[in-house]
């Protein structure tokens, strides 16, 4: 057992940290206020291969593994939850394509995705369901060598960017959910205004409306009725990104709380000298360390998934723990700030608005616990 990072892993971590601190941090507040990622930041992310870290070189990726991916995402998430969320949702769609796509599909849709010219989406959730495949109402009707898709998708990340969307619809042949690759600027595709969510600004959630969208039959992913396996494994990979984002957010909050504790004076002493503050610092340190290694481990496991069910359990328990812990750590950091922590002038308040989103996205925490319990009892 060796917990040391290799030189390459250290360099990937430092690369992401340098880019985040030098280029994202100065505009992080602006991103939060405008809910928009500046073009030059997206360009920079693409130049550094951050849109395709874990994917094979033959499909435009950097071959850096999911272990490299978690290290980079943690650093991006430390500075901007919204940018990390954008990359995470994009990588989730790429992961599904990477596992289930044909050679032709991968060449056509993964290459521009990994290069960052396209930003991909993964569209399962609908107004009436977030996690239950049996409840989806979007339909795909076979019509010669095409499918005609109708329906509405809700809270879809990156739906405003050009690129592929992995979309789930019940196809009329199998009667079960299937996955389709939909080009986001095709005829019949339209989007809502972005939802005005409380945090992770810059990462946009939109509703997607599909009216008689014509998708070539060759864009069916992995065959009719294969929606559930795609969803299960895709979302598991998605949790690698969400966990890394939450880890970054919590580490940032920890550092912010620690800094404040050392600077804020009370009766001529920094408040870090008081035991009640020290207990909070200890709790934050313990939680960050546990979350960090659980997340890194998930990245390592994602490199070689042999059993999708087992991986689903590992991903669910990691995502649940890390996202919930991120909320706890950030709450402690806010408590150290006292009333100042409630003020938008203080970074910790933005951090709180970002991390509180983690337990709800990519599968709500209670649903993740049901996955963990179900698979644990079945073992």
């Amino acid at each position, binding site marked *: 057992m060796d917990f040391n990072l290799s*030189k390459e892993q250290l*360099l990937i971590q430092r*690369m992401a940290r340098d880019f985040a601190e*030098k280029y994202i941090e100065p505009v992080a507040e602006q991103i939060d206020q405008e809910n928009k990622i500046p073009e030059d930041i997206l360009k920079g992310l693409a130049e*550094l*291969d951050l849109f395709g870290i874990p994917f094979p070189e033959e499909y435009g990726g*950097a*071959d850096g593994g999911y272990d490299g991916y978690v290290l*980079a995402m943690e650093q991006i998430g430390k500075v901007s939850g919204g940018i990390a969320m954008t990359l995470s949702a994009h990588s989730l769609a790429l992961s599904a394509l990477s596992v289930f796509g044909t050679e032709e599909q991968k060449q056509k849709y993964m290459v521009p995705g990994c290069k960052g010219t396209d930003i991909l989406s993964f569209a399962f959730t609908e107004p009436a369901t977030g996690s239950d495949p049996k409840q989806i109402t979007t339909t795909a009707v076979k019509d010669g060598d095409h499918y005609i898709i109708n329906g509405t998708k809700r809270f879809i990340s990156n739906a405003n960017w050009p690129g592929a969307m992995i979309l789930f619809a019940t196809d009329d042949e199998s009667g079960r959910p299937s996955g389709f690759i939909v080009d986001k600027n095709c005829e019949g595709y339209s989007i809502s205004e972005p939802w005005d969510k409380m945090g992770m600004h810059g990462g946009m959630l939109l509703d997607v409306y599909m009216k008689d969208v014509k998708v070539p039959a060759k864009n069916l992913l992995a065959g009719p009725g294969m929606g559930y396996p795609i969803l299960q494994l895709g979302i598991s990979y998605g949790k690698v990104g969400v966990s890394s984002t939450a880890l970054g957010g919590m580490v940032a909050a920890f550092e912010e709380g620690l800094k404040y504790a050392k600077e804020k004076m009370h009766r001529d002493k920094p408040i870090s000298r008081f035991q009640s503050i020290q207990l909070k610092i200890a709790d934050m340190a313990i939680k960050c360390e546990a979350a960090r290694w659980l997340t890194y481990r998930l990245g390592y496991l994602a490199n070689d998934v042999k059993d999708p069910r087992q991986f689903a359990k590992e991903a669910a328990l990691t995502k649940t723990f890390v996202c919930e812990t991120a909320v706890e750590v950030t709450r402690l950091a806010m408590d150290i700030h006292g009333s100042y922590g409630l003020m938008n002038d203080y970074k910790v308040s933005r951090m709180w608005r970002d991390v509180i989103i983690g337990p709800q996205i990519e599968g709500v925490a209670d649903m993740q616990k049901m996955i963990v319990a179900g698979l644990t009892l079945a073992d």
Partner: protein
Amino acid sequence: MNIVVAMKQIPDLQQIRIRNRQPVLDNVPLTMGDIDKNALEAGVNLRDEHGGKVIVLSAGNEDVEDTVKEALAAGADEAFLVIDDSLDGAESGTIANVLATSVKQIEEPSLILFGEGSGDNYSGQVGSRVAEILNLPQVSFASSIEIKENQAVVTRVLEDGDEIVQVDLPAVVSVLANINEPRIPSVTQILKAGRKPMEVLELGELKVDAGKDLVITESNLAPETERKKVVVKSVDELIQALTTEGYVGR
């Protein structure tokens, strides 16, 4: 045009803690010096403009084989390394001897670039010493370098103004930190760095007298001084105290 960039392996300064007034270096990751990265960036830009190769030259303990990947990721084409535990912390004269002997083994270098000072000791001596040993012209404090035929036109930043120097190649140039903004390598560049050519020599193979002098930094902190504490309760008492101490009324 082959460009040699000398880089020094140092502990990552951001991660050093001070305990009992001493730097704690255990488990601190190693990196290349900050201004060395500026020198590398300058070399890579000149190579992109004029062709040729950038060869990173470094001397240190065996960890330098791993550390040099940073430079190879950031655009260098090859590495030339001299490895020996005795080179870790060796003084400037020793290192200059080793580097100058190494430069002689590199194919036709036109330019040998240094950072103005190393990231740890910042003695700023090695570039000048190497130029002297190799009997090459040297330009220091460079804020820009242009190559025109077989000459380098270098802008030097001095206290009372800039100086533009024209110098025949090959030459040694040491650069300032503000000469450029070092690039951040991409994931692909990082992962491919280890596959670039690397010539690694043991110190014994180089046939150079490295000497045994070491630089030991005891502490760079200002010495602690005992301060006298006098508590006063009024301005009158303050004046009285200052007068007693001889600070007023002299």
